[in-house]
């Protein structure tokens, strides 16, 4: 009987696994990359055939007008006309009446659908732009949007440099033994050999593949690594991680010495190592009656932010990195006071700390100011609202480095630009970090173990940044 039970268990498990795999599949969408926009379009499955909405595809690309007459869908796209008929393969576009789809055209609730396999041939007829559809990963490239890259292994120190013709901003996940770069928004495609063996002490091999919703580049590494983005997003460097510098002051007792900034009301705390030139200024956001998010009757964002700042300060101290805090108590600072504190602290990096119950993991933000104009430098006279402009490059380096380190520490992370105060007015590298729980409960934000994990990851990222950022004037 035990043998019979084992058979039942195995058969049942196998069937359930097959069932689970079929349900765990990615939502079926086509990723579209066009000069105007990158977007995704849902796939409609009818009788086993993938269909895609004509207007969903065309709307982001230009001016489209469409209307249904009986079984016909007539549309005008940027002045050119096209006509489809329900249940028919033949269609007409820009005067050409002898065109054919690989499957019948569908009309569902007044919306037109064409077989997904046809979009590579159909779109150029309608838009007069070349289009290339990669059926496997369901990626559609309109115009000459494909981005090809080159990879070069450099030495002393060992590092792999990926060069792109246009700026990219991949998300990176650093795990033991491999670095994974995921290009979700960029139309990155293969540049030749997808798998390359290097057999270097640092880098074993690389592999590139297009996947549904993007493309991934995987580097198999044999040492801990960091990922940095440079040249305005045109290069991505995977390098062996530097060992943390031993702290000459780590054993010294930490005493906090409040000091008044020119802003008047803000308070800074400096550790002994910070008295000369702090490397980083930590800003625990909110404070006083301005509580930020209220996670529960006993847990508020201002409190979590300050606790995170203190833990991060301690971790940075242990690494010998000079640090100051904008506030050490439950007091309110204005946006301008925070910016003035940062600008007069002689620090190299400003980090605003936030927390949120929405989402999961770490979000790293840079300012959403316009890029610097030609000839504009850090010594130029700049409006207060856009003073961050000349420092955007350094801020991006800081964001990508810290994001990479969070990924290496097992924290889900994403980064983007956002209109968050006071980043626009800070005249050093400046980022905002929002910490969200890994699980579904906001109580995790108040958990000391969770806070410590986040603080260690952020401190590692800031430590990696030393030497990458120029010293603030």
């Amino acid at each position, binding site marked *: 009987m035990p043998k019979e039970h084992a058979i039942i268990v195995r058969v049942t498990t196998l069937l359930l696994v097959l069932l689970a795999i079929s*349900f765990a599949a990615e939502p079926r969408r086509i990723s579209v990359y066009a000069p105007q*926009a990158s977007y995704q379009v849902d796939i*409609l499955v009818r009788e086993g055939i993938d269909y895609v909405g004509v207007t969903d595809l065309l709307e982001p690309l230009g001016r489209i007008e469409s209307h249904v007459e009986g079984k016909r869908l007539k549309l005008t796209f940027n002045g050119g006309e096209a006509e489809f008929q329900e249940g028919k393969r033949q269609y007409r576009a820009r005067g050409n009446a002898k065109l054919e789809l690989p499957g019948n055209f569908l009309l569902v609730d007044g*919306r037109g659908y064409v077989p997904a396999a046809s979009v590579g041939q159909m779109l150029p007829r309608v838009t007069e732009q070349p289009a290339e559809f990669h059926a496997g990963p369901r990626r559609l490239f309109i115009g000459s949007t494909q981005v090809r890259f080159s990879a070069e292994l450099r030495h002393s120190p060992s590092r792999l440099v990926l060069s792109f013709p246009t700026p990219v*901003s991949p998300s990176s996940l650093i795990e033991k033994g491999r670095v994974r770069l995921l290009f979700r928004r960029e139309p990155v495609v293969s540049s030749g050999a997808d798998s390359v063996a290097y057999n270097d002490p640092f880098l074993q091999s690389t592999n590139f593949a297009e996947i549904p919703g993007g493309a991934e580049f995987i580097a198999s590494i044999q040492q801990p690594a960091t990922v940095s983005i440079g040249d305005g997003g045109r290069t991505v460097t995977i390098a062996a991680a530097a060992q943390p510098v031993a702290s000459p002051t780590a054993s010294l007792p930490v005493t906090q010495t409040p000091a008044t900034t020119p802003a008047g009301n803000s308070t800074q705390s400096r550790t002994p190592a910070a008295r000369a030139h702090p490397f980083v200024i930590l800003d625990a956001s909110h404070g006083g009656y301005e509580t930020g998010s*209220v996670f529960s009757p006993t847990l508020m964002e201002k409190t979590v932010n300050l606790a995170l700042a203190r833990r991060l300060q301690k971790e940075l101290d242990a690494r010998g990195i000079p640090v100051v805090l904008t506030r050490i108590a439950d007091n309110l600072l204005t946006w301008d006071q925070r910016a003035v504190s940062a600008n007069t602290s002689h620090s190299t990096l400003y980090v605003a700390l936030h927390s*949120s119950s929405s989402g999961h993991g770490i979000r790293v933000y840079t300012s959403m100011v316009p890029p610097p104009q030609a000839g504009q430098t850090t010594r130029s006279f700049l409006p207060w609202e856009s003073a961050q402009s000349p420092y955007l490059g350094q801020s991006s380096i800081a964001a990508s480095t810290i994001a990479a380190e969070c990924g290496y520490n097992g924290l889900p992370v994403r980064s*983007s*630009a956002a209109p*968050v105060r006071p980043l626009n007015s800070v005249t050093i590298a400046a980022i905002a970090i929002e910490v969200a729980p890994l699980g579904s409960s906001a109580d995790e934000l108040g958990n000391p173990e969770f806070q410590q994990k986040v603080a260690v990851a952020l401190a590692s990222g800031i430590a990696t940044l030393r030497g990458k950022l120029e010293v603030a004037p």
Partner: protein
Amino acid sequence: MISRKLQYVIASLVVAILAMGFYLVHLKRKAESMGAGPVTQALTAPVNGPAEQMTLYIASDDDDSLRPTAISSALPSDPGERGRLALHTLIIRYLQKDSPHPLGPGADVHDVFLPDPASAVVNLNAAFANSHRSGIEVEQLTVFSMVRTLKSQLPQVTRVRFLVEGKTRDTLAGHVDLAGWLDVAMVTDAFKEAK
């Protein structure tokens, strides 16, 4: 040797699991088909005229994304009213029970003004801002989804500003800056970089 009785049990189990699998796949496809269809919901004042396509950029808290969703609706020709209707429709979606990005009760947009063809001013009601959840990500998703939805209806608009009950407000709910103009191109680029 497997007994006859056990063979019947295994065969019944296999048939039951396969049947359940096929039925669930059928339900999944049906759900996908329905999901790709147009969003049907009540708009505000009925507008005469032929139905037009409108793209809503719907925020999703689950994956921090904006998802373009096309719907059909009769739209007014006046640009301001057209923009207001698009944002109102978006807000209605956010107020539904299964909202991927819930807003507080009573949230709505009063007006959309175009002081010049390239600039749009969105006047929100107090409930929109006062009941909004607090956080950079959640506020960013709201603002960016509104800017991109507005842009889809008013392609000539290059910058957008938000007011609350006709007055300037520093932030939406403590984080995202509402005090200045938002550059539409930068909003689009920022989310290209997201994730």
